[in-house]
């Protein structure tokens, strides 16, 4: 039976771990503090991230550095149109056993790692993309009628380029919905660019220190789920998710952007992500409970990829971010 002191210690430990991770990553990654926090939150929540940003912003570096810091196995798959599902999941190879008989032996693909970087995921065919789906959702792959469990913790960090759309296969909504967060990688500022230049054109920094291992992450996942959530805060999150639906009663009089530009609102999975992420944020902030601010902070990464907008929104250049921003201003904390 845990005592209050034990809980205090573990919250303090979670906060300290996160601080260490942030400072260690800061040696390799310039800026992107918010993005790093969100990736770590997704990790301790057991979710996957879809990173969107133009090439050269350090997406791959971030994921690889994360793997080093966490002392987890890391693999990278460059998605191309000719990539086959078996190239990701692995395949049964015909080999000789010690007695000389021919047998099929499963050769695991790159998905069998703790952290998988699916680079430019939208360049692969839907069939290949779907192969990753089962792995993301079930944390297992089935090859030749036999299911193979993946590593635990397991996290997919997929990247996609928002500009170059030619020769790409946009991810279907069902697949996008399986990502815990969709994170946008912003272009660095003037100061950050200068620091990037210093960091990458001088002597390489020393190797990153390991701050957390797989078991530590699994433990933190357990702690996140124990963070209490007040009903009123939960109700706020529910109303926010409901308000993303164009026909929801929570929408205000039909004049909101959601009413005009959203075809389908967030799925219940969006609410799960939102609440779990808010709990993780509270834990990493050293708090034993979830606040309204936690919910608001996690709203964009949790829901931005779950809103399906209509053509009118496309024509008028309205993004999910703008709609969600408006909803935050409209939905009351307490009704």
């Amino acid at each position, binding site marked *: 039976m845990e005592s*209050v002191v034990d809980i205090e210690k573990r919250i303090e430990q979670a906060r300290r771990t996160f601080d260490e991770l942030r400072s260690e990553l800061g040696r390799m990654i310039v800026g992107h503090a918010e993005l790093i926090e969100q990736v770590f939150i997704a990790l301790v929540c057991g979710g996957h991230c879809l990173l969107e940003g133009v090439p050269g912003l350090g997406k791959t570096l971030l994921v690889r550095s994360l793997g080093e810091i966490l002392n987890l196995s890391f693999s990278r798959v460059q998605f191309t149109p000719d990539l086959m599902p078996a190239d990701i999941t692995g395949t049964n190879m015909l080999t000789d056993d010690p007695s000389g008989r021919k047998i099929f032996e499963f050769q695991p693909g790159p998905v069998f790692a703790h952290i998988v970087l699916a680079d430019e995921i939208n360049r692969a065919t839907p069939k290949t993309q779907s192969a990753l789906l089962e792995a993301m959702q079930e944390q297992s792959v089935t090859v030749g009628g036999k299911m193979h469990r993946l590593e635990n913790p397991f996290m997919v960090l997929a990247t996609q380029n928002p500009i170059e759309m030619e020769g790409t296969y946009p991810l279907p909504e069902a697949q996008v919905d399986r990502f815990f967060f969709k994170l946008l990688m912003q272009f660095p500022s003037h100061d950050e660019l200068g620091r990037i230049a210093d960091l990458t054109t001088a002597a390489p920094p020393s190797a990153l220190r390991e701050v957390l291992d797989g078991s530590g992450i699994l433990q933190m996942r357990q702690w996140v789920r124990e963070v209490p959530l007040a009903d009123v805060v939960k109700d706020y999150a529910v109303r926010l998710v409901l308000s993303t639906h164009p026909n929801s009663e929570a929408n205000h009089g039909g004049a909101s952007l959601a009413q005009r530009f959203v075809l389908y609102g967030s799925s219940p999975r969006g609410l799960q992500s939102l609440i779990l992420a808010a709990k993780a944020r509270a834990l990493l902030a050293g708090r034993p409970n979830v606040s309204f601010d936690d919910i608001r902070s996690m709203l964009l990464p949790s829901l931005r990829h779950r809103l399906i907008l209509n053509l009118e929104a496309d024509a008028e250049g309205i993004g999910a971010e703008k709609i969600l921003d408006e909803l935050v201003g409209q939905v009351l904390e307490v009704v």
Partner: protein
Amino acid sequence: MSAARDSLQAQFAGLLAWERRKRLEQTALVMAGVAVALAIVLLPLPGYFPVIGLRWLMPLLLMLLIAPWFFHRWRWRQQDATRSLVELDKTLNLAERATTAWELSSRETTSAVDELVFKQAQERLHGFAARRVFPRQWHWQSYGVGPLLLLWLALLWFEVDRSLVEQSSGAPLSLAHKVGEFSRELQEKAKSEGLRESLKAGQELEKMARKNLEQKSSEEQLKQELAGMAKKLEAAAKSGADKDSFSAGESQQSLQDLKAELEAARDLLNFPDAAKGTRELPQQWMDRLASLPQLKRQMDKGAQAGPGLGPNEIKSLLDRLDQQATGELDRRTLLDAQQFLEQMTKSGQARRNENDPRMDGRGEQDGADDGGVKEKNHSNLPGKEPGKKDHGGLPEFRGGAETQVKGLLGDGDSSAVGFKGKPVPGKSILGQQEVAANYRRQAEQELNSERVPEALKETIRNYFLSLESGEPKK
């Protein structure tokens, strides 16, 4: 159960009790405001109450009426408690620790994490006093109650409610109300014209009417009292007639004109050059005095004016005439009042305006609107002053319906007053002297009222006098 949880529960209970109390006060205030506003809107309603005192309780009655709705609509709910806790979190920057702790504290079993929430919330709420952190805040509705209440009290104090009832209801006024209204009008007239006997009579009548209303006496009893009062007034009028030497044929208007001219004549006598130590008034001033038609007529009648009279003799003459004119007006007003009371005694339904003392001379003024120069005889109007019988002035006889004509009819002088019509193109048939005299007379009447500033009265008089002498001043 932990100490932190107990302590928190006590603090939350204190906060919620305080918030409930504020809500209750706010509800009561808003309710009071609405009740007073409704009382103002429904102002005529208390006029129908059987007991007069109940009108002062109107807002209270309305408040009792609307209270169930208000208390139901603004009842304390679970959301209100939650809102209070969230407000506490916001105010003290607790990141929803208080709200979470409050919810967790209502559960039967708590985990170690819950206990940590209690502990952190309690640490941050140490020394928290709900009254200090969340003092009473008055909204605009609360500030509106006072002025509304004052407005309502003022409306009731000035009996606006009753007058509204009287205006709106088609039903005739009660006898006491009629008498009360008549008495007030009588007093107003008596005060403005300096009629002492009429003022006394008006005051007595008002007392009588008020007593009847307060004691809720029967109308018959009031009629008896009115009959007695009518006799009293008749006696007073007769005794006044014995003393006054004015002819009964003098019209009301001519008497009023005379009073105005007397006032003007007195002012003329007060001019410095009117009494320069000479025993006799200069001929010029005597001529001006003579240009006042009513005064000249009275002087001619008595053959009292002449160049040999000195200022003191003229003054005493003017005083005597003024006294006589006032006495005659007083007597006629008493007679009017007596006739009104007699009618009330008989029917109680007679139209007020027939005997309204304020309506005297109205016919003359109305006639002036008709256009053209015309003369009208007033001396034989029923209920007015006695005079020569004039069929043109009597009510027209209509077959079938009995026409009762009141008033003293008999022989006597008839007076006539010339009226100007609207200006029409062409040559004027009125002489300048006559026009100027008429205008001056009107001006004198206006000067007697309080509408003209005191400082300007002298200038106005000089102006009109100069008009008559043909030397307009600029």
